[in-house]
């Protein structure tokens, strides 16, 4: 009897380990993304797609934004069967392609005669050896946000779409005082020095970081003048740029285009109630005005998905003109470029109506924040580590840059 009981108990345990997969409804498409409940364009895309495709339900799998790359890669390694994965960083898709998680898309493009011209070449960033692995649906580049009320109060003219970094620094210092900061740098590497890639020549993986010196010195000059909050305080307090700018005492903020939809919402909800505008980010001497850097966001089909055709229908819709219109309708910038989309972007309720802001919608050049390159994950770690040392003033910019050069060179020895 005891034996039987023991057998039974171990049997139950074994069974419970196996588990049962729930039966799937094949009209539901699972899409892995981040901040699904708070990101306006995700909500708009879901509504628009479900409205035009009766019987299909989009189900978002929400992953914490800051751990997105890590968590999704772990999910995919574990054999997750979610149909679509959104691609947050460029090197994610390269990684996933190498690991065999991403479904090759050229066959689908041919089969459905999908038109890629609207992506104006950006889709090439998702190609490995001419095979497409993801469809871009958002293309964010960095712009300069400014608080019109603070400029008005100081009697200073608004930033223009053609301004050098030195002019910007003078402007920031002029607007500092009375508890106001002229500008704000978020703690990211990108917010401080990524501007160097706007010339179309430099990249952050080119193994030479001497070109960052100018931007570190510019930052330290502004920090010394009290024109921006100190890095070490921001880091220790974990202050988010969106809350900082919404506070109303920061005159300018270089930040990605995605912040437009957040600001529009803040204005609606009353989280902040000042007038704001956007301008093109400043440019270095000799670099064309309106040049910036940015990032692509896309969607790929999981090679293990059981609804690949439906998944293709969804991601091709998402990247195409209809999806782009849905994305633009809440103030986000789609990757697909057309007259219709541009009109939709500037006509969003709450978007600034001045000509400068409208002009800033069309950048002259957008470099990639991080290029696709050999050992880019290692380079990222090294550059970020030295960045934190320079920003915390543990070492001088010159020393930090020398460290970057030496340590990155060692990777390739």
């Amino acid at each position, binding site marked *: 009897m005891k034996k039987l009981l023991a057998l039974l*108990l*171990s049997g139950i345990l074994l069974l419970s380990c196996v588990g049962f997969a729930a039966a799937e409804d094949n009209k539901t498409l699972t899409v892995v993304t981040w901040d699904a409940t708070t990101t306006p364009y995700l909500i708009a895309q879901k509504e628009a797609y479900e409205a035009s495709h009766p019987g299909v339900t989009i189900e978002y799998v929400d992953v914490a934004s800051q751990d997105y790359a890590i968590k999704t*890669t772990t999910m995919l390694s574990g054999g997750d069967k979610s149909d679509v994965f959104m691609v947050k960083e460029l090197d994610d898709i390269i*990684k996933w392609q190498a690991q065999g998680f991403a479904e090759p898309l050229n066959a689908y493009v041919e089969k459905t005669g999908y038109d890629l011209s609207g992506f104006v070449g950006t889709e090439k960033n998702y190609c490995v050896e001419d095979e497409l692995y993801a469809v871009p649906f958002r293309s964010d580049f960095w712009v300069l946000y400014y608080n019109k009320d603070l400029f008005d109060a100081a009697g200073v003219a608004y930033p223009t779409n053609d301004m050098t970094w030195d002019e910007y620094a003078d402007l920031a210092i002029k607007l500092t005082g009375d508890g106001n900061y002229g500008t704000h740098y978020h703690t990211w590497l990108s917010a401080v020095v990524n501007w160097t890639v706007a010339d179309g020549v430099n990249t952050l993986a080119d193994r030479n970081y001497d070109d960052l010196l100018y931007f570190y010195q510019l930052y330290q000059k502004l920090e010394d003048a009290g024109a921006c909050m100190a890095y070490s305080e921001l880091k220790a307090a974990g202050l988010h740029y969106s809350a900082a700018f919404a506070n109303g005492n920061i005159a300018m903020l270089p930040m990605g285009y995605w912040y437009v939809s957040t600001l529009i919402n803040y204005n609606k909800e009353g989280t902040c109630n000042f007038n704001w505008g956007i301008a093109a980010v400043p440019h270095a001497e000799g670099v064309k005005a309106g040049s910036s850097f940015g990032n692509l966001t896309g969607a790929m089909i999981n090679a293990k998905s059981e609804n690949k055709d439906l998944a293709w229908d969804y991601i091709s819709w998402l990247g195409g003109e209809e999806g782009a219109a849905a994305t633009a309708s809440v103030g986000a910038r789609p990757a697909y470029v057309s007259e219709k989309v541009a009109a939709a972007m500037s006509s969003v309720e709450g978007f600034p109506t001045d000509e400068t802001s409208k002009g800033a919608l069309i950048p002259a050049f957008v470099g990639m924040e991080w290029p696709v390159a050999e050992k880019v*994950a290692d380079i990222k770690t090294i550059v970020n*580590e030295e960045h934190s040392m320079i920003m915390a003033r543990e070492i001088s910019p010159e020393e930090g840059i020398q460290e970057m050069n030496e340590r990155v060179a060692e990777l390739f020895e």
Partner: protein
Amino acid sequence: MTAKSPSGPRLKASRLERKNTLIAYSFLAPNFLGFAIFTLLPVLFAIALSLFEWNGGDISRLKFVGLQNYAVIFNTKKVAQNGLEYFFNRVDLGIALKNTVFYTAVTVPLTILSALALAMLLNKIKGAVAFRTIFFFPYVASMVAICVCWSFMLMKDGPINQFLMALGSTFNKSWTADSGMAIWSIILVSVWRNMGYYMVIYLAALQGVPRELLEAATVDGAGKWKQFLHVTLPQLRPTTFFVSIMMIISCFKIYDVVAIMTDGGPGRSTKMLVTYIYEEAFTKVRYGQASAISMILLVIVLVITVIQFRSEKKFSND
């Protein structure tokens, strides 16, 4: 061949024995199964993985590389050229080892001292229960909350810097943003959090100190301090040993405080073995190298554990 074949009753007994053994095993099975699936197999897999290159895709992408992962994390080529100083100052693994050992070497004695001091203070005073609860509280409080609160207290104009400045210190920077002080902020939080837990262990041990010994010492004219030094402390030796071994092991596995407070920074000044493993495995998706680093951690912890097992036997034989 002199042994007789087992007679009737002997056979019966052995059958009963076997039956009993089986029943015992079946009771152990559920626990062992869980251990095997969630601990033993992953550990064995990690040992094997440290000899492979794997980026986390299908298992078919495993590529045997022998000891190359170890050569890479030790950066043997460069270290052979430039010596050990290079290893501890430039190579990620060397820096992580140095930081972890430093953290452990400071945290363990500090925690033991403060836990023992608290236990002595709270052993027989009025309201001890309330104080014990207060000092134990950090141990049950949420780690994230603790770390965030301490980060604020250790900020540039935070209360701790204000206090130190009033005492004449010239340090005026957030602790977590200073490459020298960042590791101390982690030590401080760890000691503060853990001392309540070890205090409880010491309090229990103090109850086991024979009163006769203390009385005898009093009769011989020993003051409080001498009693503590020559009676209480030696009596607590097994406890102190146990506590220090447990602490050394948990210190080598430090991750949470670092991840929340400094994320290994500034630069590499608070990079620990486990944060390094995490970085290699999950941000750079190099499971082979991450496993190789884990093996180094495993060896360190294993050595300490063996020492503990050996000495435990010695203490119990005493």
